[in-house]
């Protein structure tokens, strides 16, 4: 009995194998380009909604979706929860032509997808648009077209450990403080603990090297810009590099922890350990602090530079995929998810500030100080800059600046290091800047 041919007749077997493989591949590729016919009226439609977020946020969302399905009997919503590597997974879904019908995206995630025509532009009635923070809408526009309806806005504020300031006899910052004033307060905090061992030292200020969102306010506050009016990379210019060098010097001068000193400890952890006086952060930290902070703390706006206090305003919103076969239903879902009542329910969790100004005011009613700071930051802030090639821009920035962190780099050194980016991200771009 010859189960295994001793001569391995390739000629006999190969056509079968090749034929099988070809059919398999054709079926697979055919799936990629499959265009499904529109669902006839009256049949149930299932929408896929992708989102990130923690358990609490997800529970609120699911609860709202149950209400949506009750109100829209034809529509079912399948939630695709992607808590990690959200953007990577969306890219992989895009490659497979399987983008969810509705996706939660923030202002720097939108342009790469929009510039490839993967998102459906959204028209919002003027009356409706007026209920949103204008900066939120602006930060979700690409080439003047709105690509998402905003859900929430985030902006940076400074959380101040007032107990630490009292302990060191340092006065509270003024409500309109400047970078100079912050520098003076930092110095006082350092002078109050001259012989404290490193492991117990209280650092004046938190420090972040990535993402740029954290240090761009320093650049904007000193009249620098990441992009010029023609959409060319502009961070290598004197004003921007001077501001960046000033920011970088904060660690070398001891105003903020060096990377090797903070090691694996995050800035929020340092703040909770009372080893940080000023924490630059966003709304998302507040619930954690309420739960864990055993000290008094307050909220201040980012200190102003020569050009005023200018923080970035980052918006998150719901986009509709162009490949969605259920555009109308998807829009109904987006309208529902960004409606006042749903935003109110989500914003009461305390994790986010609703993109509708009326809702933000209502949900932050118990925190007038926080609301004042956020409202002012949103009013004076500018939309987070993005770009069709944002992931590449961000990586190139990180690579160019990496050798200079924790050093006293000069503006000229930074300008030289950033020069190649100016050549790379200008005429070479595909367009699609945030307006």
């Amino acid at each position, binding site marked *: 009995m010859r189960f295994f*041919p001793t001569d391995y007749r390739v000629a006999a077997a190969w056509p079968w194998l090749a034929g099988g493989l070809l059919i398999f591949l054709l079926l697979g590729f055919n799936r990629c380009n499959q265009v499904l016919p529109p669902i006839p009226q009256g049949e149930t439609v299932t929408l896929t909604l992708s989102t990130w977020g923690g358990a609490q946020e997800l529970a609120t969302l699911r609860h709202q979706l149950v209400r949506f399905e009750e109100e829209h009997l034809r529509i079912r919503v399948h939630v695709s929860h992607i808590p990690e590597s959200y953007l990577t997974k969306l890219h992989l879904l895009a490659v497979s032509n399987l983008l969810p019908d509705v996706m939660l995206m923030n202002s720097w995630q939108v342009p790469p997808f929009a510039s490839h025509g993967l998102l459906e532009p959204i028209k919002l009635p003027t009356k409706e648009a007026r209920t949103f923070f204008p900066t939120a809408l602006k930060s979700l526009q690409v080439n003047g077209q709105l690509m998402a309806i905003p859900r929430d806005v985030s902006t940076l504020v400074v959380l101040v450990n007032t107990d630490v300031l009292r302990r060191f006899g340092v006065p509270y910052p003024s409500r309109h403080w400047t970078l100079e004033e912050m520098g003076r307060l930092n110095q006082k905090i350092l002078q109050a603990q001259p012989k404290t061992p490193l492991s117990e030292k209280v650092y004046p200020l938190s420090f972040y090297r990535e993402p740029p969102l954290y240090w761009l306010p320093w650049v904007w506050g000193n009249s620098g810009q990441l992009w010029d009016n023609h959409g060319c990379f502009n961070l290598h210019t004197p004003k921007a590099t001077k501001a960046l060098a000033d920011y970088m010097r904060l660690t070398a001068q001891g105003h903020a922890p060096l990377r090797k000193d903070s090691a694996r400890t995050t800035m929020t952890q340092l703040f909770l350990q009372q080893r940080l006086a000023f924490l630059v952060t966003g709304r998302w930290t507040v619930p954690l602090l309420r739960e864990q902070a055993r000290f008094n703390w307050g909220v201040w706006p980012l200190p102003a530079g020569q050009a005023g206090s200018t923080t970035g305003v980052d918006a998150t919103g719901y986009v509709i995929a162009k490949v969605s076969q259920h555009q109308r239903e998807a829009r109904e879902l987006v309208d529902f998810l960004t409606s006042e009542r749903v935003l109110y329910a989500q914003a009461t969790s305390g994790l986010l500030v609703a993109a509708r100004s009326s809702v933000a005011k209502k949900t932050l009613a118990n925190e007038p100080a926080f609301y004042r700071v956020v409202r002012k930051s949103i009013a004076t802030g500018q939309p987070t800059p993005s770009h069709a090639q944002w992931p590449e821009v961000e990586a190139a920035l990180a690579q160019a600046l990496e050798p200079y962190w924790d050093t006293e780099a000069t503006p000229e050194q930074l300008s030289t290091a950033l020069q190649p980016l100016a050549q790379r991200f200008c005429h070479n771009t595909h367009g699609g800047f945030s307006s």
Partner: protein
Amino acid sequence: MTPPQKPSSLCSNTLWSNTLGWWLVAPVLLGLILFTWLPTVASLGLSFTHWDMLGAPQWVGLHQYQTLLMDPLFAKVMTQTLWFVVLVTVFELILGLGLALWLHQQATRSAKWIQWLSFTPVVAPLVSVALVWGWIYDPATGLLNQLLQWVGALNWLNGGQPMVWLYDERTALGALVALHVWKHVGYTVILFLAGLQAIPDSVLEAAKLDGASGLKALSKITLPLLWPTVVFVVTVTLINTCQTFDSVYLLTRGGPNNATTLWVFWLVKLAFEQFNIGAAAALGVLLFVLLAGLGLSQKHFQNSN
């Protein structure tokens, strides 16, 4: 007289019986084609394009290779990967061989325990290993700094200040090398023990009778006979170490200042953080060529012996 046996129905069809072997290996072959060979060919094709996974790939010829080779990070990553691979291989070879030789001579129960203990890290999941080592290297509460302080070595090393093993450019790569050697040396020990057990006792006894013992027997008999195992261990270690990703991702994310950015980590970063698939594919092709070269040289070494 026995009646002639009727051929089994399975073999009655000549085509079926002739191709049955192929049908049996077809699932594996299909998997290989779909998940190894096709992606390899696709990578080669993609390395000549610019593709961000959202639009259609754009043909750019050799541009990705040119950009990579001119990128200062490429030289840095190459050098670091080379250092990492050489150090891990050398330490694993020396420690693995030393431990295997010692264990081979011992017949005690404690030796068995040591053999078992040396293999334990191999089966431990790297994620948990990295977490434990992250704590060992922690500057403030880490075991290593506590030990060094206890023996008074911290004064000599860093003027009494805690060492920041994973966040200092001078020590971060070394810290990863130590983790890798600890994690994989048990596997090397097992390979060497198998090689040692394959050496006939009669050869060693004959050498003993001729007056060769100790170091002489080791250098003239044991090591030459163990040479194929050494070549195999070196090649496997080189190839595996070249592909290191997880420990870098879990412990240092390539930092500080890219001091621990190794080849595959950079590749993954290019592909799935920067969405520069063309550059990542070009890097992958270069690594493939390097590893294929290593594989071929191992074959050459083994054939020559």
